């Protein structure tokens, strides 16, 4: 009856005004809602209800109550109401008719069921902000809505003409036809759902939709968990416990959001929690344990394009995360009074382990059709843009514009600039205008919209979609975006935009995918640069479109291992001390590195010089007496590190554990315990080589024979002078130098097995490739390969280097192919040479204490 088509035949006369009904919007058991226009053409919502609800009172009563809410923008105004006969129907039945302001926009019910992808944590916050305004107004006027169902909350669109200036949707409550005076209303009667319980039901439904969203972050998931607790309190029946204060509700949701989005504050429980950066969810933890004296930090903290190579655990990820702007923004929010050194760049961090390895790691050359290639470019560009927007969202949310030292002020990130960026991204990137909701950072909503585009692109990649997609981003899109950013935020002129792509290595990103993405990465652009990290030889430098990055000209390779080996002993010690001290301090240990580990004093030689580790080891090898510990103390431990910071941490961890160090310990761990721990770790790391597939056993053999050789040479080679006036010292030879780098590499690359072994020896940092040095003969360069230092204690070998193992390419090949025979041959060759020169081995151990 109320929804009959005959109703649109003529106008309805309601309280002195004619309304022409145009569309039926919704119908329920007790009434319907029509869209209609008045005689001036103004659109109105017209509710027709069976008179049962109004039998005891005229609709005018609701109008009088609703009038109290006229001043609040969060309600649709109820304008008039009357009992009217329905025209054209037999007996002209009387119905209650209520006319309300027309609000354009989807209802909550529509969004939940038809556009669930729009429901995300930002949406929930905006909803809470809007609905709590309405609840506060109702409270203030002593009213209750009494029918706050899913269809009576609308996300109101802005007027079209103003949408570009202010595109935010605001939440409004409609249908004031059931308003009651709160004091007279029994909300506990059977079947009653009061306004707060409706709010709880809304939040429950939003929670359920939101948790199914692909790509929900761990932080979002935590927010939803906290939201559950708030919903429970809204539903609570105990009047003491239940949440009935709208301001409190708004505040609790905001607190939950801030708590979960700015990273969880975590105390480091133990000095050796979080060996790897990927495991640190909390930036504050990262900051607290980050050692600024990391030898290669100065180099990388610059605008130079870099490829940072090194084995797992060398600190690449930690350093990249420290360089990321978002880390510092979030820290500034969490610890506003703490003054920190800031990176020289605006870094944007993208780890490959999750969004590249997991999602595109299966792609091989034969999958790379033109469409797949284009989609990969689009996907990667979106990932980078999203990281920029997430950083800007953090600035928007955590930094007050009025704080002169805050990032929002430095960036000039305000309503106007964020709207300009929103419009740019919608036009140039998304080719769509996602709705924005009021009360929530636009940058946050924009980054969420870009994340949705990332997921859509990923799904097309996963399904190997070959249908043409319009408006994909191309190789130049990132440059256009960063150029716009620099123009909009002059801050980027001072601190250059640098994308920090972590673990961009064949282990994570297949060669053929790297080659496609390199068309973006190695494109020289004035507004941004890239820094990549990866395993040695794991980063491909050319693209599938002929673009090649040249080491030295377009980018600088920085090998963490090689840098560490060339770092002075004093710097190494400073780094080791800071690394351990930061961790001890973070978990409130009293002792510090020097207290717990001490110096590496091996006593004096007869000539008054300090006994070196090599001298002590050689002395012990050639004597039968009791052997005092030699591997102990910070200087020696610091030298164990050849780029592998994680190995250094393992050594510290083992010493402190074996030494029973507790938070209150301040005395040094015994030298014997230190040595045992160091040797244990060394042995374990050498044995671990066996587990690497497929070259593990071969790498293990090579490392074992090399270690033995170094130890053998220390014991048997005559002492040597390092200069005319210097005293003679034991031989330390942990470095192979192959004369003729080109020939050596050609030999290796000619044989697939050898190449595989050689690549893995470098990748796993068994050998560290030093910069090509000058060959001893001719104009060729030599291949210089240093043995990983943490392996040396297992062989009782020294940690220094004073004589290289100079060999020819064919000898190198033999070493790789048959390490046992190869190193034995080298030993016997050295022995024959000594015999020929009639050199008497100096086994006099005078001077060794």
């Amino acid at each position, binding site marked *: 009856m109320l929804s009959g088509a005959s109703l649109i035949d003529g106008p309805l006369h309601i309280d002195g005004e004619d309304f022409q009904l145009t569309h039926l919007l919704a119908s329920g058991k007790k009434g319907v809602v029509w869209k209609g226009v008045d005689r001036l053409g103004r659109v109105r919502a017209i509710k027709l209800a069976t008179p049962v609800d109004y039998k005891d009172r005229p609709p005018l009563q609701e109008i009088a109550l609703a009038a109290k809410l006229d001043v609040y923008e969060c309600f649709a105004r109820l304008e008039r109401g009357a009992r009217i006969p329905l025209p054209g129907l037999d007996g002209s039945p009387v119905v209650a008719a209520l006319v309300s302001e027309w609000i354009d926009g989807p209802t909550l019910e529509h969004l939940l069921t038809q556009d669930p992808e729009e429901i995300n944590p930002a949406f929930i916050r905006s909803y809470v902000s809007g609905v709590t305004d309405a609840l506060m107004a109702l409270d203030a006027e002593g009213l209750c809505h009494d029918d706050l169902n899913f269809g009576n909350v609308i996300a109101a669109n802005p007027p079209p003409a103003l949408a570009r200036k202010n595109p935010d949707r605001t939440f409004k409550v409609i249908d004031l036809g059931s308003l009651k005076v709160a004091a007279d209303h029994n909300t506990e009667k059977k079947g009653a759902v009061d306004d707060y319980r409706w709010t709880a039901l809304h939040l429950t439904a939003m929670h359920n939709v939101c948790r199914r969203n692909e790509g929900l972050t761990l932080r979002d998931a935590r927010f939803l968990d906290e939201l559950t607790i708030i919903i*429970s309190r809204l539903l609570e029946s105990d009047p003491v416990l239940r949440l009935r204060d709208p301001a409190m509700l708004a505040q609790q949701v905001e607190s939950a959001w801030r708590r979960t989005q700015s990273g969880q504050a975590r105390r480091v429980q133990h000095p050796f929690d979080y060996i790897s950066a990927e495991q640190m969810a909390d930036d504050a933890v990262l900051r607290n344990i980050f050692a600024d004296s990391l030898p290669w930090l100065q180099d990388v903290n610059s605008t130079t394009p870099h490829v940072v190579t090194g084995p797992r655990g060398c600190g690449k990820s930690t350093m990249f995360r420290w360089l990321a702007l978002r880390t510092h923004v979030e820290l500034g929010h969490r610890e506003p009074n703490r003054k920190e050194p800031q990176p020289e760049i605006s870094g944007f961090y993208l780890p490959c382990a*999750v969004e590249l390895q997991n999602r595109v790691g299966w792609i091989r050359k034969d999958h790379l059709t033109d469409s797949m290639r284009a989609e990969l470019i689009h996907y990667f560009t979106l990932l980078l843009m999203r990281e920029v927007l997430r950083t800007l969202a953090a600035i928007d949310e955590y930094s007050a514009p009025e704080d002169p030292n805050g990032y929002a002020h430095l960036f000039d990130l305000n309503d106007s600039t964020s709207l300009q960026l929103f419009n740019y991204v919608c036009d140039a990137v998304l080719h769509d205008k996602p709705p924005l909701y009021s009360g929530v950072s636009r940058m946050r909503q924009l980054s969420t919209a870009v994340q949705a585009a990332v997921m859509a692109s990923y799904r097309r990649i996963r399904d190997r979609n070959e249908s043409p997609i319009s408006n994909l981003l191309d190789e130049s899109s990132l440059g256009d975006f960063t150029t716009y950013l620099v123009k909009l935020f002059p801050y980027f002129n001072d601190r250059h935009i640098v994308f920090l792509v972590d673990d961009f290595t064949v282990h994570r990103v297949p060669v053929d995918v790297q080659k496609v993405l390199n068309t973006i990465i190695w494109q020289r652009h004035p507004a941004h640069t890239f820094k990549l990290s990866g395993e040695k030889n794991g980063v491909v430098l050319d693209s599938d479109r002929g673009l090649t990055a040249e080491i030295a000209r377009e980018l600088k390779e920085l090998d963490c291992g090689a840098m560490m080996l060339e770092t002075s002993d004093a710097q190494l010690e400073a780094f080791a001390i800071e690394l351990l001290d930061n961790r001890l301090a973070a978990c409130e240990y009293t002792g510090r590195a020097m207290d717990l580990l001490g110096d590496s004093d091996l006593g004096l030689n007869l000539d008054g010089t300090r006994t070196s580790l090599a001298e002590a080891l050689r002395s012990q090898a050639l004597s039968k007496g009791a052997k005092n510990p030699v591997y102990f103390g910070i200087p020696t431990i610091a030298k164990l590190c050849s780029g592998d910071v994680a190995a250094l941490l393992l050594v510290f961890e083992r010493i402190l554990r074996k030494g029973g160090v507790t938070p209150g310990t301040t005395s040094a761990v015994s030298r014997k315990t230190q040595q045992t721990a160091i040797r244990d770790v060394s042995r374990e790391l050498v044995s*671990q080589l066996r587990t690497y597939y497929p070259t593990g056993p071969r790498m293990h053999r090579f490392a074992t024979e090399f270690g033995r050789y170094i130890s053998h040479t220390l014991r048997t080679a005559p002492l040597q002078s390092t200069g005319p006036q210097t005293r003679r010292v034991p031989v330390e030879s942990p470095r192979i130098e192959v004369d003729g780098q080109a020939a050596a590499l050609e030999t290796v690359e000619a044989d697939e097995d050898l190449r595989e072994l050689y690549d893995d020896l470098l990748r796993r940092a068994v050998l560290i490739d030093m910069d090509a040095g000058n060959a001893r003969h001719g104009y060729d360069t030599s291949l210089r390969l240093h043995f990983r230092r943490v392996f040396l204690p297992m062989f009782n070998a020294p940690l220094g280097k004073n004589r290289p193992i100079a060999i020819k390419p064919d000898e190198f090949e033999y070493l790789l192919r048959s390490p046992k025979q190869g190193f034995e041959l080298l030993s016997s060759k050295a022995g024959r040479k000594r015999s020929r020169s009639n050199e008497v081995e100096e086994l006099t151990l005078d001077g060794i204490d």
Partner: protein
Amino acid sequence: MRYQLRKIDLESAALGLPTLKPLSIRGAHYDVGIFPLGFEDRCLALADRCVKDNVTIDRKVVVIYPGNAKDNETNWPQLSESLGKIPGNGVERVSVQDMRSWVLNDSHLGESGSRVIVDTSGSSNSLTMRLVWAFLERDVSLTLGFGEAKQYFPLEPATKRPTARGMSGLDVSVEHPGLQSGYSRDSVILVPGFDKDRARKVLNWVDPVLLTSAYDQVTWVLGVPHLKKDRWRVDELRAIHELGDNSPWHNVTLCSTFDYLESWRTLEAIYQDRKSDDRFTLSPMGSKLQAIGSALFCHSRSDVRVVFSLPKSYSTKAYSFGIRRLWQLDFESTQSLRTTVESVDSLEVIDTDSDQVLLSGTERVWQ
């Protein structure tokens, strides 16, 4: 009125799900039958039974694996002959890589209610998980047939012969890549088979530190055979993977090889325990039914990454043989299965006075 918020846990969500029952398909009709071609003799059993029980299948699909191709083909003549005897259309051969798109795009599966039977006897873990994923995208009535072997390898304790030969690598599942973001600790759940190298390779790949120190981040789910006489195999798994009392790997949990719901529950419990801190990688190398449990678990937990550790080939002489019994699992509607799976961890509001559900998912249940 008293309202209460309730989180739907796996126990309540899975209440109506079917359990394994002896195969009973006499006279049944299926629109599609899927038969993976493996080298074990049990991969012939379901087709033979279909012939014997006068089953009709409109379309028969044989799934072809790239590995052990020659060994698998030895079963082809007999499988082909049996399928030829089942009334219906001819046989299509589809590669294992293409099965997902085949299920997603096949127009005959378009209408809801299509009846599908899949022989999981010769199905690898990755194929089983792929098929479950794909059918959850469609709406079909799905019967998973399963032939229990008479003998499983190893036949006795301390058998040295490995079940696999060499390693061809690790594959992140395209269906379950782990939609993760942000930083968190890596945690690995291994459902190991009788091959030490395959399990170690997964740990090494995720993070070598899991092999040497971060032992608490690895959980081993060891399969318990349903026949008592085979229970020694649990100790064998412990021995092979070095999980004894002195092992640093202390997170070891047991789970039936024969109950997909128990597998799901076990994985869910591990996940619940550490979900707020860890990023999970699951590597299933266990039984077929465990793979079904894994597939449902992963569908409900899209942040879990699945990694398959693939041998170059399987050792055909070190594998199961014979048929003890045929079983089936019937899912009436894969869409309602999907709703069930997705409801885990969602909230519902109940009226505690009447125990009536007021809101579930996004649906307001009361009037």
